[in-house]
């Protein structure tokens, strides 16, 4: 009788562990998906800000045509890469876009009136913080992947992960320059 009770308790505890561990795996996997969509949200926000920025700079420096065209082309390219490109292509397009934005701000530096324009300053602040957010979203994504991968690879949850096909996720690996937030001092 006593043996049956002990076995029963062990079985119940084991089942509770399974339920708990399974739910935890599902939760962390969903967190990764959510973190991934966060990155896309912030990238989209950056694409939306860029036309406004270009328009504002154009108002003061209309003849810097080549710079505007480069930014616009890089933006279109990045949007395209995001919709259907591989992660490597996406990273490359994003880096190209960041590069053209840098030259746009370098152009803006030469126009004191523009630098004093409140609208331009607001856009610059928004763009800087969006770039911070992109970096932070990637950081959170990678942190989530780390926790998840640790869980599915370490014993005993690895058995459960194997049985229910929880597969390892890839880290986001950007350009070493692009992984940190772009710090702009002004």
């Amino acid at each position, binding site marked *: 009788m006593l043996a049956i009770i002990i076995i029963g308790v062990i079985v119940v505890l084991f089942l509770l562990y399974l339920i708990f561990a399974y739910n935890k795996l599902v939760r962390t996997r969903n967190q990764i998906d959510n973190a991934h969509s966060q990155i896309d949200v912030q990238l989209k926000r950056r694409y939306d800000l860029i036309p406004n920025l270009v328009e504002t700079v154009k108002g003061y420096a209309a003849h810097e045509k080549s710079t505007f065209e480069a930014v616009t082309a890089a933006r279109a390219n990045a949007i395209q890469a995001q919709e259907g490109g591989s992660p490597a292509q996406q990273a490359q397009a994003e880096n190209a876009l960041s590069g053209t934005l840098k030259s746009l701000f370098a152009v803006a530096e030469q126009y004191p009136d523009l630098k004093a324009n409140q609208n331009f300053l607001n856009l610059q*602040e928004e763009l*800087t*913080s969006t770039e911070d957010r992109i970096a932070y979203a990637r950081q959170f994504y990678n942190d989530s992947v780390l926790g998840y991968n640790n869980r599915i690879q370490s014993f005993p949850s690895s058995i459960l992960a194997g049985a229910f096909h929880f597969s390892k996720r890839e880290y986001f690996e950007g350009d070493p320059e692009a992984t940190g937030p772009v710090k702009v001092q002004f």
Partner: protein
Amino acid sequence: MGMYEQIARNKRRTFVMLAAFVLLIALVAVALGILFQAGIAIVPIAIVLAIALAWGSYFYSDKIALSASRAVPADGPEYRRYHNLVEGLIIAAGLPKPRLYVVDDPAPNAFATGRNPKHAALAVTTGLLQQMNRVELEGVLAHELSHVKNYDILVTTVAVTAVGAVALMADLGMRFLWFGGRAGRRDNNDSGPVGLILVILAFALLLLAPFAAQLMQFAMSRRRELLADASGVQLTRYPPGLISALEKLQADHAVVHHATRATAQMWIEQPLDRDQEKKGTKGSWLNRAFDTHPPLEERIAALKAM
């Protein structure tokens, strides 16, 4: 794992503190009951009152802390950067966005409050927003968000209100005792043992105030500030930001106007002036024993060692 242990410990501490708080109120009630010949009947009333106060301090401590510091919501275009930085950091921390407040004060300082990340609030002084550049402000905000994430805010805000309430009651008790005691002496001068009990109880009440302060120190633990520095930097991945912010705080000797000893532990830097306390009038060694924060040099050195 370290963080989850910290969260569990903070929740446990909050519970212990609230229980101690209810017990303390009950003891004060017993003392008052005997003192004013009201009998034991007042004890259940006091316990109900204490539980109501504990409940209130759990749900309303953030509002009390914010209004005690004269914090107002940070609305308006001039606070865009403040909002943007917090919105970035919460992505990295995986937290909901806290309510943001500003305290109109030239001394640079900041604090976080609330009972959990869903009901959290950050407040910064206008001095902080003016003196810190973007990276430094981000370091400070990351430190505050770490307090939110680690549930430090729960312990500190409940401590602020509970300790404040106990100190207030002890103070009131002392005042009543002073007047009541004198009246009692006039009425029945020769009530030998009762008079003795009154004196003993007076001392018991007198002892309550330092005990409340002890409770407060139990709750605050200076190590928590070092931990929040470390986990803040884990968010920004940029120690120089917070280091340079702390160095600016070190160079600044301004005192936050609406900070009191009770709310001191909430702020990122000790809001009261140490030098003033050292040459101060009352119990300076005691004041330093109750320093709420480790020295800034120590915190900067710890960050530089990372």
